[in-house]
């Protein structure tokens, strides 16, 4: 229930490519919850959390995009200074290798949500739970 389905999309690093992809989603009423772009000089990986990942994946694939579904988890943080470093300290002390992370805030709860990717997600879920870091159920993230 804590694994959020993130979409990873291959993008060429060229002017207009990101717009084309996001515009396609907009035209199809896909609402984006969070976005993160990792790029090299030549290509990038666009990572998205959307309301309806399956629908979004179908639309993107119909329009010649390469899309992979990758599970990630979301941890809830206080939207105050130090909120993020508390969680990162736990991850460091427990010797977990993160692949990447990104965060977004939302008005509803005055909390920030930290999205995390690691090799062993189950282990990460276990550790954060033990440290009482609140995890956000996937459904809740989709429907914020």
């Amino acid at each position, binding site marked *: 229930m804590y694994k959020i389905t993130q979409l990873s999309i291959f993008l*060429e690093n060229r002017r207009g490519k990101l717009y084309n992809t996001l515009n396609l989603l907009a035209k199809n009423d896909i609402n984006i919850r969070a976005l993160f772009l990792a790029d090299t000089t030549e290509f990038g990986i666009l990572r998205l959390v959307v309301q309806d990942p399956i629908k979004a994946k179908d639309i993107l694939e119909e329009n*010649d995009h390469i899309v992979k579904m990758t599970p990630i988890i979301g941890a809830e943080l206080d939207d105050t200074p130090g909120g993020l470093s508390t969680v990162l300290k736990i991850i460091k002390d427990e010797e977990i290798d993160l692949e990447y992370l990104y965060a977004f805030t939302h008005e509803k709860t005055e909390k920030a949500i930290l999205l995390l990717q690691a090799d062993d997600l189950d282990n990460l879920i276990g550790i954060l739970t033990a440290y009482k870091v609140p995890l956000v159920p996937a459904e809740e993230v989709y429907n914020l």
Partner: protein
Amino acid sequence: MWNEEIETMPREDIYELQLKKLQSTVKRAFDKIPYYNKKYSEANVFPEDIETLEDIEKLPFLTKDDLRACYPFGMFAVDKKEIIEVHSSSGTTGKPVVSGYTQNDIDNWGEIVARGLTMMGLDSDDIIQNTHGYGLFTGGFGVHYGAHRLGATIIPISTGQTRRQVEIMADFGTTCLIFTPSYGIYLGEVAKEEGIDFDKLGLKAIGFGAEMWTAEMRDRIEETFKTKAYNIYGLTELMGPGVGIECSAQNGLHIAEDFFYPEIINPKTGETLAEGKHGELVLTNLERESMPIIRFRTKDLTALHYDTCKCGRTLARMERITGRSDDMIKVKGVAIFPSQIEKALLKVSNIEPHYQIIVTRPDIMDEIEIKVEASASLFSDDIKEMMAVKRKIGEYIQNETGIAVNVSLVAPKSIPRSTKGKIQRVIDKRNLH
């Protein structure tokens, strides 16, 4: 001239000599090489059917595929112990083509190249710096044997070590350089940097080959090195460099017609074309002990001329090669086929990705870019892994072709398709035609 009798022989006598040699070559191939025996019997054509030179058209063509089917030694007409040397061209679908030589074949090779070096104005007093690679590539050794035959001094420096090349030409007083045009242009740049004054060095001639070239490239070479540059043509299957060499007139390459019988065909229909018409060059060995190659389709596009040359030679002249009738491209002197790229791509992905080969020459050196459309099997959510995929593709292609390429991963369907959904595999932007 090195061999005036042959090189100025009246055309009638050349044809007579060629017919005699063709008849004995076909008979020998038929009797000694099971592959020919089967191929010709199936085509219902036999040595006694060759009564005139035109009768050669009755014989089926030989292609690289035939030679691959005989890999490694199935084309040899002599006992293996008679073979004293083998060369090989890079394989395109795994199996390379093997070329074998007896002592007589090596001697003839030297004779043919010595004629060509003489055409270029060289003699036994000259010092020839050979930058062609020594190895399975025929370029290095062909020139080497020719220089020995001529009695000149050969510097077998091979390719690379460019600054050393410059030092040696200055110290040894090189009078002739042998190179591929693109390497030559690079060598010229480095030599200028090193402050070589070519007016003082006194080069007599340059022999260049193994790649396609343009009049502009020749001009640039001649201007840089302050001497005349002559084209040398050849191919591993028939022997190596020397099949055709330019004379002082620089108006086409004289073919050693006592050793090779040239034809021009329409590559689509296979029909033989008349003098002066452009088509694919087909070559036949007229005097080769080890492996007589008969009607080999070179895929090289050119035209033939039989009028007597300004230099007095009566031997046929072939024009500069202007293209290929298949997808082969020559990059940095190396032959590359799309099939090699495909093979490399299949190693990183279980389904074959769509790709395109783009060759450019931004200044003097060829650059080759392989665009690969990313696919689900090549894509992962991990940048490091994606970079590794890119690097691996580059490494596999380099293993397969021997040259470094730039790989770029592009979006699916971003390479333009024709109306039939086909991708143009090779885009050559070098303006060599």
